[in-house]
């Protein structure tokens, strides 16, 4: 299983800033193929900015991001697009195109980048909608369905092209506990079935423990990553009071070393 250990994403010495205000310094981590990697941290720690940088929408202040050894920001536009095409992104609010029906939302990437016939595309759209439990909603507009359904529809769009890497921005934000749980289950199933590498940005503890194989905890005050590893191991073994506080909602303090 040498293949499984190869990092899909490698982040080296990354600095992040938001409106000229530095939020993170010198981030280093790597994400292995086929794992679910959780980026966690309190509000305002730069999670969303990190996600923007990872999906190639924002150039970092400093540092490198490598996708399977290829340095993203050293590529020309065509090279960057080639890498980005392997991404699926689930945005916080879903970001479904509001003037399109759900079917058209999912069909658009297929029309652009697959060689499928219109009939095959229609079948593919139905399959993707069925995978997220929305069969029969092809002709609905995003404004006609609930927030939880919108997120699942957006997930169907994110997996339209069977991406290698799927990014989730706060998947449980704004969802009731059951819908959030349903989405967590979907994430786990996607990992098992598609074999995709998944990166989740969240501060929802339940999600972190439910899906995370590995995690990085970002800290606002020190502007750095203060822990990384399996979230359950972190909870059991970490000596850092900030890590324990975050993972227990501040209810437990770390054992003194």
């Amino acid at each position, binding site marked *: 299983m040498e293949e499984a250990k190869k990092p899909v994403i490698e982040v080296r010495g990354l600095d992040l800033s938001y409106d000229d205000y530095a939020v993170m310094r010198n981030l280093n981590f790597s994400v292995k193929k086929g794992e679910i990697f959780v980026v966690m941290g309190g509000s305002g720690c730069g999670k969303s900015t990190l996600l923007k940088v990872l999906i*190639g*929408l924002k150039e970092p202040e400093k540092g490198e991001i490598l996708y399977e050894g290829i340095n993203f920001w050293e590529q020309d536009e065509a090279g960057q697009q080639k890498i980005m*095409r392997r991404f699926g992104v689930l945005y916080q609010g879903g*970001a479904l*195109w*509001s*003037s399109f029906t759900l079917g058209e939302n999912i069909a*658009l990437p297929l029309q652009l980048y697959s060689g499928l016939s219109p009939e095959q595309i229609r079948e593919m759209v139905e399959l993707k909608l069925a995978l997220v439990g929305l069969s029969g909603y092809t002709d609905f507009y995003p404004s006609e369905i609930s927030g939880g359904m919108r997120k699942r529809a957006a997930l169907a769009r994110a997996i339209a092209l069977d991406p290698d890497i799927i990014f989730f921005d706060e998947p449980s934000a704004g969802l009731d506990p059951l819908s959030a749980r349903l989405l967590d289950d979907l994430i786990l199933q996607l990992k098992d079935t598609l074999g995709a590498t998944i990166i989740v940005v969240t501060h929802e503890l339940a999600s972190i423990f439910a899906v995370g194989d590995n995690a990085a905890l970002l800290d606002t005050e020190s502007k750095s990553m203060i822990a990384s590893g399996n979230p359950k191991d972190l909870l059991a073994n970490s000596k850092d009071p900030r890590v324990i506080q975050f993972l227990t909602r501040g209810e437990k303090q770390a054992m003194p070393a």
Partner: protein
Amino acid sequence: MPAKLSFDYPSAGSLRVKLSGNWQIDVGLPAENEVISELSSHKDITQVTFDASEAGSWDSGLVSFLFHLIKDCERKNIRVSHQGLPPGVEKLLALALKVHSRIMPQKAAAEHFLARVGSKALEFSAGALSLFNFLGEIAVAFGRLFSGRAYFRRDEFISIVQKCGVDALGLVSLISIMVGVILAFIGAIQLRLFGAQIFIADIVGIAMIRVMGAIMTGIIMSGRTGASFAAELGLMQVNEEVDAFKTLGISPVEFLVMPRVLALVIMMPLLTLYADFMGIAGGFLISTRVLDLNPVEYWQHTQSAVSLSNLWIGLIHSVVFGVIIAVCGCLRGMQCERSAEGLGVATTSAVVNAITSIVVATAIITFICQLLGV
């Protein structure tokens, strides 16, 4: 009963503040200065205690009063005992006075006047740069359109054409007829002095076809379509829909901006032609019905006054205005900040920029026509 303060001295160096009455925001509160002046007239005081046994009901007015008093006493190194306060007040005070260890993000300090002027100038040049970038991207998108490689949805384009064409006809008719009527009346007052009222036909015809039709249509479309472009694209920006296009490798300029520019560039000349005729019709109606001019003579005068070059100049205006309105609307929408205020700023500046640019463009085109002698 309103809130009242009184003081006594149970022991040397100790001030007891007695609180009585109802401490509520809506009945008014005593000034904190009363205590401060009491403290400064007795320099030997090292401790302040409270007696609230006669205090009636209270709300956050009392807590706010005590909060600031305690902060002042801390600065003067005077000890404050919280005993004797109602238990609820004590808890709220403890919450408010708790020191939070979190580092506060730095708020931008007020800038010096010169620094503000400098950053405004830099902002302006950055704004100009982003405008040229945007125009470049639009040019590239049109290049792809003409080489048949552009990707956008045909039915969405048709619906944009409908929204900025057919749907605007009512408003354009009303405004143009009115402009024709106004021109006729203004002309009538002056020309009557010379008995040359028939020349109203020339004034209305030339004015409408050469500039007025295009300008009025441009202003209507800035408010109607320019604002709606900015709001649509702005909301898409806020909802991350634009990002979703980018991650799929679809150029938002090609998919969202180019069809809108194209639709306006096609529809503006047509709307302007329509406005021209409506304006002339308005002038005709007033001149023949109210000012008692001969309809046939009026029509002949209009025909002989209006030349084809006037019509072309009007249509050139309208195409330029179409580009201006679409670019202003789309640019402001794409630059929209992710907040409700941002959306308002985007739509407002789209309309203001478009109307200002239309007036400036008219001046430039008129100047060029003057140079060319047409």
